[in-house]
């Protein structure tokens, strides 16, 4: 712990041995009988002016509780059990509430994860910024108005005078987050706490916001405490990194050290679990088990139960801090004198064996493509916009506007794009959960559109869906057995024999790596990753050929995501499943997909094999999208970050798409022809097509220079 170190100059925030506990689950008037569960146990760190400390950890590790604790904004059940929070020399935990209010917003300000809920929907933007100005700077009237304008300009909002009078619902998600940052900056804070500031945003918007935060920090020499689970964001933003696990900080290091030589086994595993090109098609490293529950924290090292290097000492004694390099500290017995015999460092880095298995899998995957399973041709889904008393249709939201796809057995097609581009709607329209307005969907040569429910039923067996949120996709009132058995029952499989069905359920549970005893338990008894396994089991139970995966890992932590991706890969190899993988995560695409289709505003703008699209992207949108993805590796890594292409603005409304090429208002290479008509499909190779005027047949010769740019 940092308690022994002298406080160096310029330290803004000094947290020592912070302990935060939550009262037990059952609310009662007598608090003394309630067990207190320690969510944060002895966390200590320092933030200096002008530096960014990133607190990295998976969900439930106590990073948000720590941040809220610093501001003394814990929820009702939370208690500060001990520790010290020194901010500019004052111990915040001793301050009276009245003084604490000047610290919040004035001394340190916070940006929350969800911009949609952190602004008050019934107050104008000007009011919400002005509130802080009045409280902390005493500005009112014209002075406050001018300052608000400056702030909105500073956070990069165009036409700030107009925006001041607008309400949050009139702003887009990225704009709301900018307003939120403006509100946070209004009190001139010395420290900014950003709690997952970009998690709810698309990659292109995320890149904009991160860039904004960086420049604001440099301008104002603010300290920043960045809380995130995303290694890519850490790589871009942090000066120092603290890794949290189960309520403790287990490793703290300067960024470069952290990325070049992570020391703690947990950190190493985290890196290894990231899907990446190097392990394409192979198995990802996973961390076995799960984070221990608050009520049953082990006495020794908290990671011991999941650690490959753990030995007797780890289970008995909690490790002390060890300095392994300048500013690089780690809490692990491997680096203590007693652990000298154990070789540190090499555990998590992918070894030769992993690469070998990757190549084997890759060769297995490149077998001859089988006959086409799913053909989608010119699929359209238009939602009518109705207005007035008579509900006349005044227009259409073109959620999906002419999408064509083909998918063969045993292959994975990734459908990528920002939120609102219609990729989920495509999935649901293929499954006939949403009626298509036009086009055809053919599965195994049979047309799905326009069929009656009974005619569709035999085809429903062939295709299933895995949903994004494992907490919303399982009925909490049914046991796991009933959930999995439902599809078999509805589709009339296994007949009426209870015995046969129970055996089938057990078999499919084992297939997804769950115990047969899970049958009688209820979804709430399982963790997020296990729930997603149940959802996969439900889909598999009817033995489909096609599985539509709608962002199946976006709600999961990195280590759990790796488990699910591995499972999906194994199932594809064993059963020859075809996946239509809907995602916005390029790392996952890179790892899992054979082909990629990029969607923008209801249309596919680029299609090709994964190498073609991700290594040599052609469409300006694809290139911008790829450049915006923060890489979880430092620039020294061979696959360095491509130059960031800034995408101005946000995705337009599909009710009123721009004329010509939909992308032209945001495209740097747009020409006159782009504003006039939608580009034809140009074929670059036999598998690679793109819809862009830059590659139109008559222009290819003149455009070569541009595309290389």
């Amino acid at each position, binding site marked *: 712990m940092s308690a022994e170190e002298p406080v160096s100059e310029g330290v803004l925030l000094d947290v020592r041995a912070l302990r935060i506990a939550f009262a037990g689950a059952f609310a009662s008037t007598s608090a003394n009988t309630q067990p207190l569960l320690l969510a944060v146990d002895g966390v200590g760190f320092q933030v200096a002016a002008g530096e960014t400390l990133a607190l990295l950890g998976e969900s439930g590790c106590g990073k948000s509780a720590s941040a809220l604790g610093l501001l003394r904004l814990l929820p009702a059940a939370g208690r500060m059990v001990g520790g010290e929070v020194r901010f500019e020399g004052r111990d915040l935990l001793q301050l009276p509430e009245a003084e604490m209010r000047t610290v919040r917003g004035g001394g340190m300000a916070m940006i929350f994860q969800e911009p949609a809920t952190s602004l008050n929907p019934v107050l104008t933007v000007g009011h919400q910024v002005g509130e802080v100005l009045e409280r902390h700077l005493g500005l009112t009237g014209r002075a406050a108005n001018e300052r608000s304008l400056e702030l909105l300009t500073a956070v990069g909002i165009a036409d700030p005078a107009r925006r001041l009078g607008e309400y949050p619902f009139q702003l887009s998600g990225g704009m709301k987050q900018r307003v939120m940052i403006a509100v946070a900056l209004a009190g001139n804070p010395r420290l900014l706490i950003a709690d997952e500031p970009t998690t709810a945003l698309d990659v292109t918007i995320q890149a904009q916001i991160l860039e904004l935060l960086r420049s604001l920090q440099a301008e104002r020499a603010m300290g920043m405490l960045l809380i995130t689970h995303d290694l890519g964001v850490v790589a871009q933003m942090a000066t120092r990194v603290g890794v949290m696990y189960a309520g403790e900080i287990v490793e703290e290091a300067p960024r470069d050290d952290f990325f070049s030589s992570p020391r703690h086994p947990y950190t190493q595993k985290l890196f290894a679990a990231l899907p990446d090109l190097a392990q394409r098609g192979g198995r990802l490293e996973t961390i076995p088990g799960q984070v221990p529950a608050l009520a049953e924290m082990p006495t020794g090292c908290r990671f011991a139960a999941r650690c490959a290097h753990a030995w007797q000492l780890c289970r008995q004694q909690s490790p002390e801090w060890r300095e392994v390099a300048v500013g690089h500290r780690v809490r692990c017995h491997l680096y203590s004198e007693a652990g000298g015999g154990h070789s540190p460092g090499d555990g998590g880095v992918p070894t030769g064996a992993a690469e070998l298995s990757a190549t084997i899998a890759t060769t297995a995957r490149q077998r001859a493509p089988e006959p086409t399973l799913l053909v989608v041709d010119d699929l359209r889904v238009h939602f009518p916009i109705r207005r007035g008393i008579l509900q006349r249709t005044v227009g259409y939201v073109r959620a999906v506007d002419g999408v064509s796809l083909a998918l063969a057995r045993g292959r994975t097609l990734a459908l990528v794009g920002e939120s609102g581009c219609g990729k989920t709607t495509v999935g649901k329209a293929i499954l006939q959960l949403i009626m298509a307005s036009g086009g055809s969907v053919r599965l195994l040569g049979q047309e799905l559109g326009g069929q009656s429910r009974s005619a569709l039923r035999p085809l429903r067996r062939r295709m299933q869906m895995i949903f994004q949120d494992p907490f919303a996709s399982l009925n909490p009132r049914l046991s796991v057995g009933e959930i999995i058995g*439902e599809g078999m029952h509805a589709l009339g499989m296994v007949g009426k024999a209870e015995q046969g069905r129970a055996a089938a359920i057990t078999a499919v549970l084992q297939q997804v790596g769950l115990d047969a005893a899970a049958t009688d338990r209820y979804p709430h008894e399982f963790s997020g990753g296990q729930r997603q396994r149940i959802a996969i089991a439900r889909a598999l139970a009817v033995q489909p050929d096609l599985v539509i995966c709608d962002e199946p890992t976006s709600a999961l932590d990195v280590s759990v995501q790796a488990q699910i991706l591995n499972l999906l890969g194994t199932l594809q190899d064993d059963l020859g499943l075809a996946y239509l993988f809907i995602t916005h995560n390029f790392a996952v695409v890179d790892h899992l997909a054979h082909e990629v289709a990029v969607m923008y505003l209801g249309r596919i703008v680029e299609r090709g094999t994964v190498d073609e699209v991700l290594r040599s992207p052609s469409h300006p949108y694809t290139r911008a999208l790829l450049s915006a993805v923060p890489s979880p590796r430092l620039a020294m890594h061979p696959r360095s970050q491509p130059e960031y292409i800034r995408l101005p603005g946000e995705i337009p409304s599909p009710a009123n798409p721009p004329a010509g090429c939909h992308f032209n208002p945001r495209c740097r290479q747009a020409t006159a022809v782009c504003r006039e008509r939608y580009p034809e499909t140009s074929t670059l190779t036999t598998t690679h097509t793109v819809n862009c005027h830059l590659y139109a047949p008559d222009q290819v010769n003149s455009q070569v220079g541009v595309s290389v740019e």
Partner: protein
Amino acid sequence: MTFLPVILWSDVLIWLLVLAAFLLAWLSVHNPLLRAAWQRVGRSRAGMASATVLIVFVAVGLLDSIHYRPRLENWEGHREAQGAAHAGQGEKPAAYAIEVLSLLDRLLTPLRTQIEKTYSEPLATRAYAKEAIELRAADGQIRQTRDYPRLKHGGAHLGADEGERDADVAWRLLRALGVGVLVWLTVATAVAAGLARVAACSQREAWRRIWHNESAFAWNAVLATIGGLLLVLLPVATLAVDYHVFGTDKVGQDVLYQIVKSVRTALVIGLVTTLVMLPLSILLGVLAGYFRGWVDDLIQYLYTTLSSIPGVLLIAAAVLMMQVVIDTHPQWFETAAERADLRLLALCFILGVTSWTGLCRLLRGETLKLRELEYIQAAQAFGVADLRIIVRHILPNLMHIVIIALVMDFSSLVLAEAVLSYVGIGVDPTMISFGTMINNARMELAREPMVWWSLAAAFVFMFTLVLAANLLADAMRDAFDPRLAGSA
């Protein structure tokens, strides 16, 4: 047979509800999720205390729901000679009293039959108003004096020693309290012993757990409530034998008896109404929310229209029509009790038909939310039939709202009955209910000197009943609402 069982329609419904409650209990034992929710209710101390009070009310109501007509010994004779009634006494067909009694009436026979002339204060030995009394003086002359006449039954055992009343009351109270403490200790020891056997620990340890709030069930609240109830009910019971504990009303009837009889009316109104309301609101709400489109439009139109009509107006119109029907068909009813009962049911029905809109709207909204959830879409992707989706996926996830609404509506319906009876469109005037008591109190409060006890007693009991129901509703909402209960 010494009596003729009478089955009123409301009795049937009440016992059906009891059956349904047992069914729910059976289901709860077998469904781990429901069981967990009920265990959360069991942990809530306020909830368990109010449940104990409610159980007493329900027990009274159930005792009052077994009706019979006693057999008349002979045309002029009365029921006293029941022991002598032999089956073979006469060949002529047995005659039964036209008065319908309940088991509760039988238990409360002294209260029911000891009728004074008119008003008397609680625990009084003399009437509340002066009267001209003829007294035969020692010299044999009859003299008229104006004085408070001696009550026929209130404190009759004291004879001429009316001054002894306070001492007598105090002695009875003391005795009752003593008995109460004894009974309570017995109950508490039995609970501790039972708990000790279940948890396999010493009785002392079980005792400590109860009072340190460490038992899984809020036994301390239950025991404390039982203690409180004993300390109130036992003294009332011992006093009620010889006094009018809450005084008498205008026609000399014991107010305590009226109060106890009102409990059943309140329960019927509160529970049977929800029976009418639930099917309507669940069916229409789920249909509107699940199918959307024109079904939704139609149902929304229906309930918006219905809830725009002033409720009291609608109820008044319906009740008056009902009354006309009842009055023009006297041949339908054998006894006055049956007529009053039908009118009570009609009121329940009308209240149910006018009050389903709120719950329906709530359920429609929840269904709209549920149908977009991914597990419903997963079921649709399997081609599961709509009806099955509704029954398996939507209804169970609505159940917490239904249970909460049921308990919450109970108290508001009990209050509504009081208001409607006050306006004169409530239950039959011959039926004793909190509403009719309050309605009568209107005149009593206006007279001088004021008669306050009738209203006060009705108020205290109704307040206790509604408060207990509300507290239990709170505890159940906390336990059943998935958002508050944490896990789904």
